[in-house]
């Protein structure tokens, strides 16, 4: 049975329209909204905010900031050594981290690894990802002492968490036909990985390495604050000596270094894709 052709001049039966709500059930919708509001108010009221302390602190903050102006690069040699140490930490941790990420990524790729190996690989990645670099840095500073070694180990783990995960996902997307062709030629397991899988993931691998170097440079300034060497340590020392104008100068140098490195790596990565 076909619909009768409607008269275009007659008014339609329905004349209102509203976008359907994301949560169609109104009871559910309103109780969720209410819940969020109630929780927000409750959370705000139970956290200890010391308004008097904040009031006292504001002038102090103003003093710090006014002390920071104008920034003063008093001891450039200190900044330079700090920056070079940060750079070394970033480079070494990237090489170490990415180097370890490649085998871990192969272990954590569902299409290549047997189940137990896959679970082990995923486990390593989950552990490496589950702690913020600051927490890992505190642990390593306790374990191996203050200095760049703690920073390198921290950022190597940080790199594994990111690079191995992204690389494993890329490996899971490879064109399987190429693997099949080499298996059909009688190639062994490991040479098949080198011939059929590595060339396919190479562009992603290089892009991730550059990105991770950037990221490690940034993070190495931060983990330096908890004692893991580099420019972060220089910055922290300046703060401890109430040397705010020097600290501010260091901060600006860090920002400049990161912007520079991002500009360079951005160019390289655009060339790669």
């Amino acid at each position, binding site marked *: 049975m076909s619909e009768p052709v409607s008269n275009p001049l007659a008014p339609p039966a329905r004349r209102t329209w509203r976008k359907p709500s994301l949560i169609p059930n109104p009871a559910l919708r309103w109780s969720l909204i209410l819940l969020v509001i109630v929780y927000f108010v409750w959370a705000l009221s139970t956290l200890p905010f010391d308004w008097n302390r904040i009031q006292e602190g504001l002038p102090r903050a103003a003093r710090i900031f006014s002390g920071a102006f104008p920034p003063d690069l008093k001891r450039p040699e200190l900044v330079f050594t700090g920056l070079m140490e940060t750079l070394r930490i970033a480079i070494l941790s990237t090489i170490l981290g990415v180097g370890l990420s490649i085998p871990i990524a192969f272990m954590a790729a569902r299409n290549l690894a047997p189940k137990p190996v896959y679970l082990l690989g995923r486990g390593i990645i989950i552990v490496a990802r589950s702690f913020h670099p600051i927490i890992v840095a505190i642990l390593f500073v306790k374990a191996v002492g203050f200095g760049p070694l703690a920073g390198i180990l921290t950022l190597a783990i940080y790199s594994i968490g990111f690079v191995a995960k992204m690389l494993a996902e890329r490996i899971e997307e490879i064109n399987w036909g*190429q693997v099949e062709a080499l298996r059909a*030629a009688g*190639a*062994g397991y490991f*040479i098949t990985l080198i011939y059929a899988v590595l060339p396919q993931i190479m562009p992603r691998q290089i892009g991730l390495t550059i990105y991770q170097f950037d990221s490690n440079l940034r993070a190495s300034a931060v983990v330096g604050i908890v004692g893991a060497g580099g420019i972060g340590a220089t910055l922290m020392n300046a703060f401890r000596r109430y040397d705010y104008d020097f600290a501010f100068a260091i901060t600006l140098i860090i920002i400049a270094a990161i912007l520079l490195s991002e500009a360079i790596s951005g160019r390289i990565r655009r060339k790669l894709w």
Partner: protein
Amino acid sequence: MLKISNLVKCYGDSKAVLSDLNLEVPGQSCIAIIGASGAGKSTLLRCINRLVEPTSGTIELNGVNLTHLQGSSLRMARRRIGMIFQGFNLIDRLTVMENVLSGRLGYVPFWRAALRKYPQEDIDRAFHLMERVGIAHYANKRADELSGGERQRVGVVRALMQEPEILLADEPTASLDPKTSVQIMELLRSLSEEYRLPVLINIHNVQEAKEFTQRIVGMRFGRIIFDGLPSDLDAEAMDHVYDGVPAAEREDAQGVILRAAAG
């Protein structure tokens, strides 16, 4: 000589893709396997080099039973079986020469292959074969820079690098235009004669099958329902092989076979 007896392949608990299939290929010959999509042609070829594990039955190549080989003995057997793919399956980001030499991966030790230090006779063989099919000037080009027909030539040369005792070609011309498709079929036929090789070709284009092969095997519902000379494949036999809609076919495959057996 290739001898397939009582070959069965089931995926999971579903109906058999290959059911009780028997096929003999004595010595050099160029054989086309035709049949609708889903008839089991691809599975048949992949059972031979064990990219697909047969459920039961035996496959013998020159006296060696391939069906129970494991580990290194399976790889020894596979390197004697060349395969050519519909999508070429070249390593796109490697050079043509590396792709060609990858046909030797079953022979050369790991480190030599990883460092690309292949034996001189492999390199000689590679250049010889590339010249034979007309791609030697592309040796250092990346495989993905070549056209479809050229890439399939690389695929053919890679298979021949294995010094195969048999060639399996899974729809080698399905990704090519009609002209290059004819050239590749021509090449497969002449290589089969030059190297005294049995060549099994899965193919959809029946005209090409008739023109370039000496024997045609028609498959349906995982069985061979036609096996004869190209001249024997008349309209009636064609109907028999291609009858029905491929998708619906699988559903009532069992029923049709039973009815065919009863009638």
